[in-house]
């Protein structure tokens, strides 16, 4: 089995994008050419099939990185085209491959009235998918950096070309924030090269080789900061988050999903992959500051969400809060916290996608993003209301839905690290109940306001787009094992590199318990 499956998985959508771009323009009105859209959907499904195969073939007891490919790229720099996935990368590649066809199906008509037509819209989405798969699979820092920057291009065009009235400023704001982060990261990337070139290992960007390069303490800390700030902007964390609500408000629902559910994860993924693995000492050193920022993000994002009247902005702020949880789990440096974080990334991807898409369906019908323009929608569109409620409940981490498990694990990790972190972050669960249920109450319940009286309920295509998300949210709420068993070994390996171990219980319970858990064979 020597097929370069990861390369195939990332090239498929990119090539598909080219095809979609050159096909006759899709559109509405009399022509109603749907072929480009169908091709886009088909390509994304094919990609999902390939990625799905990789996921099934992934051996949870196998080597850390699997499906590896390494080709020399720029010899002088020691840069390689190197791909490979561990459980963490695999989870995010899967998430990307699942979300893209969902977004395409849900955005069927969203590209029609954009600046450049539907073909461009779907082509950019596919490009974005290919780049995202590449970035989550990159095991070479230089490759990662280049693709990290390259992802800005499609999302810039998606926001700037297919969004609301103030889309241009929003797109530029997005870009400036992310370019600034990118510049800092570039400096750190260059620094890494300098360090490796001077060491016995020689110039290299391969992650596997870089981890063996000794880095002086102060240098490592500077480099850590360079990477971390770039990732914190991307994630985004308070106080560098304000580009996200603007982007979400102006972008189409599908764009927001690609941006918030997938692209922003590069930030938190980067923290695990590069901050922790390359600079373990610096990570420990920065932990108090990072955890503080994380908890502030959790609460700040949630409070800001409560105060929003604009639905996409509200969802964007809930994500600021959720990203706070993810970063919290990463930096508490214990197994359940970190497994929780990676699981959180996946679950948040599904949950927020569902929320953005349902909200998008609603907004497209009524033509307003403002909560205050709605009321009593449940009465006229019960299926839409039900979907919004399920998505909302998953966002507030209701037990039985998948985000609960990841959020609990993160909080458990925070508690084990220092109870006060968990005690502060746990307030987020009350605030989450408020921002979701207030929004639901104001839009869906009460007497039906005249302007939504004629609203149509979701059609088959819309339900079909949401169904896989809802299904995953419910199933993984009861059976998270397929993902956690994949993530666990990767987390264990990361923590070993950082030199962190789980705190022992203060009063170990009966040994028979522990032994029983040990012996359990996976069924």
């Amino acid at each position, binding site marked *: 089995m020597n097929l370069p499956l990861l390369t195939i998985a990332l090239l498929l959508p990119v090539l598909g994008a080219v095809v979609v771009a050159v096909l006759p323009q899709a559109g509405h009105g009399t022509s109603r050419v749907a072929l480009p859209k169908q091709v886009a959907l088909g390509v994304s499904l094919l990609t999902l099939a390939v990625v799905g195969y990789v996921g099934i073939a992934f051996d949870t007891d196998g080597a850390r990185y699997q499906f590896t490919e390494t080709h020399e790229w720029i010899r002088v720099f020691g840069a390689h085209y190197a791909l490979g996935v561990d459980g963490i990368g695999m989870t995010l590649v899967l998430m990307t491959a699942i979300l893209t066809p969902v977004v395409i199906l849900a955005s069927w008509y969203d590209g029609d009235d954009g600046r450049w037509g539907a073909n461009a819209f779907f082509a950019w989405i596919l490009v974005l998918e290919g780049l995202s798969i590449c970035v989550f699979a990159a095991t070479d820092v230089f490759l990662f950096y280049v693709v990290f920057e390259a992802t800005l291009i499609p999302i810039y065009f998606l926001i700037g070309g297919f969004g609301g009235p103030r889309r241009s400023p929003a797109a530029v704001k997005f870009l400036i924030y992310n370019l600034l982060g990118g510049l800092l990261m570039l400096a750190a990337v260059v620094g890494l090269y300098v360090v490796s070139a001077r060491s016995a290992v020689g110039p290299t960007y391969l992650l596997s080789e870089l981890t063996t390069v000794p880095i002086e303490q102060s240098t490592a800390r500077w480099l850590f900061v360079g990477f971390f700030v770039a990732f914190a902007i991307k994630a985004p964390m308070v106080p560098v988050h*304000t580009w996200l609500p603007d982007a979400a408000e102006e972008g189409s629902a599908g764009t927001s999903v690609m941006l918030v559910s997938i692209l922003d994860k590069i930030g938190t993924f980067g923290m695990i992959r590069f901050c922790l693995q390359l600079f373990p000492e610096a990570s420990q050193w920065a932990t108090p500051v990072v955890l503080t920022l994380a908890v502030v993000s959790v609460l700040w994002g949630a409070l800001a969400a409560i105060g929003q009247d604009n639905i996409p902005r509200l969802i964007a702020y809930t994500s600021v809060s959720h990203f706070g949880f993810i970063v919290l789990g990463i930096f508490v440096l214990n197994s359940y916290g970190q497994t929780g974080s990676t699981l959180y990334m996946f679950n948040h991807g599904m949950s927020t996608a569902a929320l953005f898409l349902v909200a998008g369906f609603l907004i497209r019908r009524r033509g307003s993003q403002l909560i205050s323009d709605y009321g009593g929608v449940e009465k006229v569109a019960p299926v839409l209301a039900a979907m919004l409620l399920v998505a909302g409940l998953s966002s507030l981490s209701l037990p039985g839905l998948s985000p609960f498990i990841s959020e609990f694990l993160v909080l458990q990790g925070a508690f084990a690290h220092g*109870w006060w972190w968990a005690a502060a972050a746990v307030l987020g669960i009350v605030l989450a109940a408020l921002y979701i249920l207030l929004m639901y109450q104001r839009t869906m319940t009460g007497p039906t306001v005249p302007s939504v009286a004629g609203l149509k309920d979701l059609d088959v295509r819309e339900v079909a787009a949401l169904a896989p998300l809802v299904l995953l949210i419910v199933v993984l709420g009861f059976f998270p094992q397929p993902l956690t068993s994949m993530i666990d070994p990767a987390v264990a390996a990361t923590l070993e590199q950082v030199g962190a171990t789980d705190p022992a219980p203060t009063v170990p319970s009966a040994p028979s318990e522990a032994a029983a858990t040990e012996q359990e064979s996976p069924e």
Partner: protein
Amino acid sequence: MNVALQETLPVVEPSATSGALSLLWVIIALPALGATVILLLGNRRTSGFAHLLGCATVVGSFVLSLVCFVTLLGRGEEERQVVQKLYTWVEAGSFSADFALLYDPLSALFLLLITGVGSLIHVYSVGYMEHDARRARFFAYLNLFVAAMLVLVLADNYLLMFLGWEGVGLASYLLIGFWQHKPSAAVAAKKAFVVNRVGDIGMALGTMLVFTTFGTVAFAGVSAAAGEASQTTMTVLGLLFLLAACGKSAQVPLQSWLLDAMEGPTPVSALIHAATMVTAGVYLVVRSNFIYDHTEAAQTAVVVVGTVTLLWGAVIGCAKDDIKKALAGSTMSQIGYMMLAAGLGPAGYAFAIFHLLTHGFFKANMFLGAGSVMHAMDDDVDMRHYGALQKAVPVTFLTFALGYLAIIGVPPFAGFWSKDKIIEAAFGENLVVGTAALLGAGITAFYMTRVMLMTFLGSKRWERGVHPHESPKTMTVPLVVLAALSAVGGLLLLGDWVVEWLAPVVGAEEHHELAVPPIVVSLVVLLVVAAGVGLAVALVGRREVPRTAPTSVSFVTRAARADLYGDAINEGLLMRPGDSFVRGLVSFDDHTLDGAVSGTGGAFGGLSSTFRRMQTGFVRSYALSLLLGALLVVVAMLAVNL
């Protein structure tokens, strides 16, 4: 003494399920299946059979619960704890929690209560919701509730219990807001969920502390090692779980949601907000006996909360004209009694559960009775518009009367036995607590007599066009069954059965020597109850009840009508300041922070002036910066190589 005490404390040591008990999971699966089928197919497609499916699944669960109960009865005392591990639910690093069901004498009683009363209320709802277009949906939610409640009481660990805990919260949210076109219902539903979430902080942090302390979240592991943890840990755990219990069981200071929850259809009030869900807090405390037994401080806190709430709810109950709200105040108060008992440790656990069961019977009975009255009065809930209904709705009257006799504690009805035991135990603990419990019994007698008089006796004060009629059989039959149970529920205490049955779970009852023989306490209680009844007859029965509530009333009445200002306090202390804070934060986020970061960033990269220009020539600029970056890399690398 302490060492001796610890040795006698029971430990959760279940064996694997076998025989009939391996059907345990089906008890949960049946209602869960019912809910799933109805919700997936939708209201319209299932409207023909949803009520039948809903009833059938719960009745099926009841039958299985009975079978399991009989099986357990047939076993020796040491073999009455079984666990059925279905699968490993969460496994992440060194954290692990099973989807495993613990069946023991405590959960056995709850199973019977939940599925038994649940079945009756399902049947009742067939008639009560007959004319509601969304009846199928209603049954789906009811089934969902029963499934979640069963998970709550069958969970063998704190995390799984949390699943049931919030699951019932969700069902409660959906059902309070069932008529969500009414803004008041939608607001009440949200309020219930949010206030419960405040309590859930305790549940979440408690579970986390359990794990970091014991390395497991399973009851078995915790109970085995409980004696070795520090006093502080146990106290903190006790207080955290008490916070959780306050939320779910509407105990002060998290009581404010329960009265608003009466916005839900009446069967919901009976099942969720009287008989089962709101008592989950008591279950949590009793289930966590292995924690509370090691911390007197937390036990005292439980007693204080229970005592305050039993008076708080009773006072509210005296001033309400809305029949459901009067009953809701009463529910708070009665759960206060249970909490009080649970806080007494092994001396009270069994009585807390005993009262929980009898209360489940008589309060469900009276709520359903109230529903039947409302049914007769065109959904009017104002008791000032009732009066003289005993002839119009005779079955409802008689069954309600039995519930009334039970709750005020007239021998030999159920409430007499269970409340008397709690008051006795309270006196054994502390004179103040005992007196408060005694006083509570008097107030209970007063407000319940007031409800009886205003509803069924006195003169007709009906609204024009109202023609009261007795409810259909589907509604009256459950009433009769519940009334019978309210009458004979005390039999559970026969030969101390319930105490001995629960002993393997909660420990043997400690015997407190009272200064006076128990019979004296019972007599005093009866005297106080008689005084409460007499006062009500004098104040309400002997006078004409005004059709609108008088406004020139004492400060106490005004306070009680305003739920003792619980909402006003929340409003003033939390909601209004919180609202301003959020507004300030949003404005800061939109202007100051955004501006500062963009400004700094802009100045830093020299981009702030080019911000707008870039919109047009953007692509070029982007390419330029990428190129610049790449150049930088090359230069740096050459520099190193040279």
